[in-house]
């Protein structure tokens, strides 16, 4: 009795401990970061609003809106067609990207689940499953810790510019994220139906087809669609380094100061994002 009380107070005392530590750490980080930005980097908020800067900003915004521009891109049919083509290209890139990352995820996700590695999922264990589990999990961490853009910067040294390197870069980052999310789905699987299938005489492959896959599929598809939404948003960014689509054109238009074209591209990008959110939501409802 006594021991239990003591144990409880210990845990309750320890819990706020970590939270208090986190709070302190957060405050320190925030203070140090702001001090660094304001005093070491000497970034001045007032300088941002200087006369000269405001003038410059106004000019930029006006030229984006096409005020005082001779032939604003958004009034030209040709520019619209071009933007449409680029939007389509971007869409294809996102589909390739999610497809590649799903292939990578599907090939690795089962051995990457802790319950497969310790033999509870398939009711069988091999000596190397722990090792394989560790290796894949490290790959996942590595893949998702590196941002898409940095993957793209590396990939573009190997592939010629186009939508494929963009798709590969996006896939490399999303592979780790999807892998982690989906492995967790398998780890949270209800084991009772699996054991029941086994007791009805089902073998490994049959358990996979009639047990594991139907149970994880809805969640997998939901995660895949969510990631696709994120990928759509990010396609523009990998385009910056020459990986095709709207992003590549955005970069070119920016460096040629064709700001009305930039506006047009941003409109197309925005429409694509909204549209893909809508489609993804529809599909997610359909699988439920």
């Amino acid at each position, binding site marked *: 009795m006594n021991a239990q009380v003591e144990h409880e107070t210990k845990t309750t005392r320890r819990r706020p401990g970590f939270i208090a530590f986190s709070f302190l750490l957060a405050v320190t980080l925030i203070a140090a970061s702001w001090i660094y930005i304001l005093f070491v980097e000497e970034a001045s908020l007032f300088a*941002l609003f200087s006369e000269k*800067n405001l003038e*410059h900003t106004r000019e930029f915004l006006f030229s984006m809106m096409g005020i005082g521009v001779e032939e604003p891109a958004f009034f030209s049919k040709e520019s619209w067609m071009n933007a449409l083509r680029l939007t389509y290209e971007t869409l294809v890139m996102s*589909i*390739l990207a999610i497809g590649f990352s799903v292939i990578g995820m599907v090939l690795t996700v089962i051995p990457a689940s802790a319950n497969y590695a310790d033999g509870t999922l398939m009711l069988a264990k091999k000596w190397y499953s722990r090792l394989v589990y560790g290796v894949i999990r490290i790959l996942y961490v590595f893949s998702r810790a590196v941002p898409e853009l940095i993957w793209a910067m590396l990939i573009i040294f*190997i*592939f*010629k510019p186009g939508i494929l390197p963009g798709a590969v870069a996006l896939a490399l980052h999303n592979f780790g994220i999807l892998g982690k999310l989906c492995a967790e789905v398998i780890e949270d699987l209800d084991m009772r139906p699996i054991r029941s299938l086994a007791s009805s005489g089902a073998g490994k492959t049959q358990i996979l087809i009639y047990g594991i896959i139907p149970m994880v599929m809805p969640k997998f*598809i939901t995660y895949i669609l969510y990631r696709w939404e994120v990928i759509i948003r990010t396609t523009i*960014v990998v385009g910056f380094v020459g990986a095709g689509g709207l992003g590549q054109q955005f970069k070119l238009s920016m460096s040629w100061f064709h700001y009305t074209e930039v506006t047009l591209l941003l409109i197309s990008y925005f429409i694509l994002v909204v549209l893909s959110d809508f489609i993804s939501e529809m599909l997610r409802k359909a699988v439920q």
Partner: protein
Amino acid sequence: MQKFVDLHKRNLLSGLLILVFVWSLFSVNWGPDLFHSGGKHTILQMVKSFFQPDLSPEILQLAVTSAWRTLAYAVTGMTLAILLAVVLGVLASGILYNGKQRIWVKSSLRGLLGFMRAIHELVWAWLFVAAVGLSPFAAIFAIAIPYGGILGRIFADMLNDVKPEPIQALQSNGASRLQLLCYGYFPLAAADMISYTMYRFECAIRSSAIMSFVGLGGLGYQIHLSLDDLKYHEVWTFIFFLIGLVILVDLWSRFLRKRLVS
């Protein structure tokens, strides 16, 4: 036929998605033209230098300061994002006001939050740099806006999902709307709000790292420079630092979330 459709609703959908992917494969011009002529050689070099990152003191020192800069941009950007998100989230949740305009205000604010997050942080960064020139504030604002949008929408949802009983109890004690917020809604939703913010903080590190692309310093900038000079050994050093930073933040946020939830 109808029975077949009944039996395979989800499979048909998956099949359709697979078909879309296969069809997208045809838009790529497969062939030897895909690769740079030296592509294979480059891969080999990159892989080789992966195992021999440059660990000279100068590079390590550079990596540490760049990592700090990346972290600082992420933290300052997140600070602003949280402020934005709390203000906009409270307004978008509609708990502060009543009456006719409520629905209108709610949906227009949610639309604004959606717009903020629809556009990628790097695009925001580029627009800022184009508008106000190269300043750390361009990076900070570029992080603050989309993250403010994401956090704001989630905060609004969390405030809406607060259990109604404690709020009603406060109301019957005669609390004003602002008091309700401070003594009811915030304390009840705080754990969830902080958990989610921590979860996003990890992403903010990555976002901060790529801000370098528009010319702002940090790990991404160093990776960029080293790549331009084809110094792959250095590239990997910086990438390893980035991964380390992300893992540290991930571990912190995971432990904190576990503590907050239980």
